[in-house]
């Protein structure tokens, strides 16, 4: 390194700043708790609340036929974990009230003559009333019904054919779907990595956004800038302690994700650690950058929330798949660092993919970290104290005594 008086090593200037930051963090248990436990807490809250799985939908059956065949058929529904049979109705008109007060999500109506028609090989129809107010649940549940009906139809058809003497019939075409990486299609698998990214991004940016402004407000910044300490020492010295603490925090989230939501780490842990460190460093750099621009702690807080909360939530692919976004919006997602971290995180955790598949994302994260750190260092150097002093307001003024 150049310009190092006395030829002391590069890190000599950073160490006192790091030690000071750690001491200050230790004396401020509220911030430390915020940093360490809020992410885990948010994971619990969001993890249980944000659940897109459709299971245990309340079901009412109105069996107007009352035959063995109709009971068998409705029994198929109750036997799955997707539906819970809550009501047996004798009059289809009761369905209205049940759906209206959301006592059930689906009402299945089996018409009179269902069993006879089946036995006779005639076409028969069942009716399913679905509460469409929650569209997501409705479509998924309707899908399940379709699937169950399909498989039942197949069995009946085969039965009929068999009875007509056509044995060992092969079906001409069959789809065999296998879901990889998340075989039960549980949304927790998909959401927990996203939640991790989201929570870490918000927490990390806020925690450092306040540090430089606070020093300027208290006047300690001036005292530091008049010393031979380099701006880079200051920025790194402020970032390193928070990187370490937020890494701990991220591991708590990983552990909880595994224990409570069964989200594994299939891939290389070191790779995960690398991308995580890059992402956290970038986020912290962004925080310091905000801090060099904001005039007060309140402003710094506002900017941090604005630049992390919604963009990460909406544009990172956390909840809404990027490919489904309008084409105009998609380019903006490239500006969101969380997008890249999320992609690598899902790849490493769920798929166990190697670096080859997402080196571009890692590269971007490295660039994000480098840019935020370098720019905030430059800003600190240039604008450290370039603020205009209070103007001498007019007239002749007596010397104060």
């Amino acid at each position: 390194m150049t310009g190092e008086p006395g030829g002391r090593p590069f890190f000599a200037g950073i160490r006192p700043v790091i030690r000071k930051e750690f001491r200050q963090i230790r004396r401020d248990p509220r911030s430390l708790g915020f940093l360490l436990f809020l992410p885990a807490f948010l994971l619990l809250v969001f993890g249980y609340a944000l659940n897109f799985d459709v299971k245990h939908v309340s079901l009412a059956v109105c069996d107007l036929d009352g035959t063995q065949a109709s009971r068998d058929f409705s029994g198929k529904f109750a036997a799955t974990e997707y539906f819970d049979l809550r009501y047996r109705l004798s009059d289809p008109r009761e369905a209205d009230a049940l759906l209206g007060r959301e006592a059930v999500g689906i009402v299945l109506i089996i018409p009179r003559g269902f069993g006879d028609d089946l036995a006779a090989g005639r076409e028969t129809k069942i009716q399913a009333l679905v509460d469409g107010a929650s569209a997501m649940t409705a479509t998924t549940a309707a899908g399940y019904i379709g699937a169950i009906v399909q498989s039942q139809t197949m069995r009946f058809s085969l039965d009929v054919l068999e009875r007509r003497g056509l044995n060992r019939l092969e079906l001409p075409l069959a789809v065999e779907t296998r879901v990889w990486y998340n075989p039960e299609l549980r949304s927790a698998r998909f959401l927990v990595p996203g939640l991790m990214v989201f929570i870490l991004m918000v927490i990390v940016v806020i925690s450092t956004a306040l540090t430089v402004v606070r020093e300027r407000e208290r006047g300690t910044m001036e005292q530091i800038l008049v010393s031979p300490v380099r701006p880079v020492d200051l920025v790194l010295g402020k970032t390193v302690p928070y990187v370490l603490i937020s890494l701990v925090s991220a591991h708590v989230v990983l552990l909880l994700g595994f224990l409570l939501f069964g989200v594994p780490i299939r891939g290389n842990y070191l790779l995960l650690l690398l991308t995580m460190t890059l992402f956290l460093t970038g986020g912290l750099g962004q925080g310091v950058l905000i801090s060099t621009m904001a005039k007060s702690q309140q402003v710094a807080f506002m900017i941090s929330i604005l630049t992390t909360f919604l963009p990460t939530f909406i544009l990172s692919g956390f909840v809404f798949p990027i490919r489904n976004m309008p084409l105009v919006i998609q380019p903006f997602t490239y500006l969101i660092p969380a997008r890249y971290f999320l992609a690598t995180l899902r790849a490493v955790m769920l798929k166990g993919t190697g670096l080859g598949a997402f080196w571009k994302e890692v590269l971007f994260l490295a660039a994000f970290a480098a840019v935020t750190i370098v720019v905030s260092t430059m800003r600190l150097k240039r604008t450290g104290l370039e603020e205009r002093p209070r103007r001498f307001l007019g007239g002749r003024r007596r010397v104060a005594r």
Partner: protein
Amino acid sequence: MNGNSIEVHGLTKRFGAFTAVDDVSFDVRRGAIFGFLGANGAGKSTTIRMLCALLDPTSGTAVVGGHDVRREPDEVKASIGYMSQKFSLYGDLTVEENITFFGGIYRLTKSRVQAQMPRVLEMAGLRGRERTLTRDLAQGWKQRLALGCALLHEPDIVFLDEPTGGVDPVSRRAFWDLINGLSEGGVTVFVTTHYLDEAEYCNDIRLIHAGRIVGGGSPQELKRTTIRNPILEVECDRVVDALELLQRESWVRETSIFGSYLHVGVEDEAEGRALVKGRLAAAGITVGRLDLIAPSLEDVFIHKIEEQTKETERDR
């Protein structure tokens, strides 16, 4: 550097259309206590920031400790100590931790910090309170600790920007004893203040008004050379009316209000006494005591400011 610690030539700082410091020049002798005096907003802090390489001058040069502030800011920073009007240590660190931190950013070795520790604690009067959080200290102690931290790396020059702001008179006195001690030890002290009584402690002072230096010299010199005519201190009622009345008289050189007194500069003492008494009595103002006084630095300052105001008006 021929015995000068600081040499400033034509130093100017503009913020947009506003000129905060206007063509300022002066030298500071090694080991001097140099006072920089002016009202708030006169340009004191801006000058000090330029000298500490915190702010780039718009034009002019400043050489501090043999280093040009623009070309060698890091060398300047390494050779000076700085303490500002705001208390600027970390309230959430202990006394000892603050000392260690400032030692660290001035790149002192651990052993040197350890060696300096007792000296700083002694100086701040904080021996035995090493583990107290700094925010729990009284203002006077904080200020002395801040000075101690600014001196940790044993600089040849210290800048003190209104060091005694908000400090009680006893602590102020103690603080000035420290400053005198430094000067005796060969350290150059550059101090700004708006307490004019404190300026009497300085060897050399400059008066700054609206960004310009309006006068300078030792306090004695300034008082002797600036105001040659006698000054009368007048005790009377309705001081504001009296002031307005006297200002219009041709034989009055200058006037100012000091609380319930008037200071009136006249051509001649005996004649002045008679004229003041007569004029005020004619207006129905009762005159009490009327004394000849030695001019204070405040008289000097007001005189200089008035002189300059007249000059700029004439230039227009």
